[in-house]
């Protein structure tokens, strides 16, 4: 791990594409380990998600929050251990692209939900509206 960080801060550190970091000779053998760690963490988080909806231990309204948190965590695990998006200097381009993607995804999702909830709140129910049209 320390050898790796020394190599990464050197000014001639190469840019790396997603998933290419482990293909270099100096990272020999770390690849399989990374995939195994990712698999174990992902299986654990998936099991936790399925357990969350079956158990009665968790306070009801907290279940959706737990599901979202577990899903975000698992996506992070997939990004790091399967797609090899890291925070190293060789990955700056990949992380910036990801950040832009996350921005657009949140704008689309939360923007849509917000607008629709707002419309739903402020508009007359459709049945009343249709009654007035007559």
């Amino acid at each position, binding site marked *: 791990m320390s050898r790796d960080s020394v190599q990464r801060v050197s000014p001639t550190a190469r840019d*790396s*594409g997603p998933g290419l970091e482990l293909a270099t000779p100096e990272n020999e053998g770390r*690849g399989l380990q990374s995939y195994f760690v990712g698999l174990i963490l992902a299986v654990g988080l998936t099991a936790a998600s399925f357990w969350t909806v*079956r158990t009665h231990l968790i306070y*009801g309204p907290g279940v959706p929050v737990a599901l979202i948190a577990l899903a975000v965590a*698992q996506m992070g695990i997939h990004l790091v251990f*399967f797609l090899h998006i890291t925070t190293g200097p060789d990955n700056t381009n990949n992380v910036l*692209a990801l950040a832009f*993607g996350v921005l657009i995804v949140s704008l689309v999702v939360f923007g*849509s939900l917000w607008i629709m909830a707002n419309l739903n709140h402020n508009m007359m129910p459709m049945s009343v509206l249709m009654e007035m049209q007559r």
Partner: protein
Amino acid sequence: MTMASAYSPIDPNHIGHNNLDLDIASDDAPGHGEGGPASKQIIVSYGFWIFLLSDIVMFSAFFAAFQVLAGYSGEAAPSYDLNDVAIETGCLLISSFLCGVAALCASKRWLVRTELFLLLTGILGAIFLALEVREFIGLIANHQGPTDGAYYSGFFALVGCHGLHVTVGLLWLGTMMAQLITKGFRQDILRRLACFSLFWHALDIVWVAIFSLVYLMRFAP
């Protein structure tokens, strides 16, 4: 403008592909402007990453549509079989893992093992797809098909779009297995394999969102 004088017949557009498939310059080039641009492998992989992110943006629109329709349509959501969803999730997760192992085998130039792990990846992907199709057929037979209400329209658009991606992925996987046999570990084949691997992992990320927000959320109290 020194463009004209720097014209090279093998690299007319100055995008750094002057070594064709050999990628020699890349070994010294940090890709920060010193020593030339990054290797073609890195550029291709980065470009494909941009495509995957745009694909995820498209999925987010389907998610938003589903969430809105699920919230305001009066229909009762179908009672999904969580065991099937769990098996599908397991299939796709292990498939994603095996795809990574295949990519590692390819980096070692082990043809037989690469093909074997790619085959296992494909089989698990096909099991996933078969379970999903069976679920769809069951829903449609139960009058919960895409034309039977807003909730089901949103559901089929979102989950069906992911299923289509998996189908395309399986076709791509078969193509890569055939190309590995006929063309061997050429640089361009390895680049395509790397892109496929990214694609397959990204599909698993989308599925994480689907099984959490579409299926499991339905069972939240």
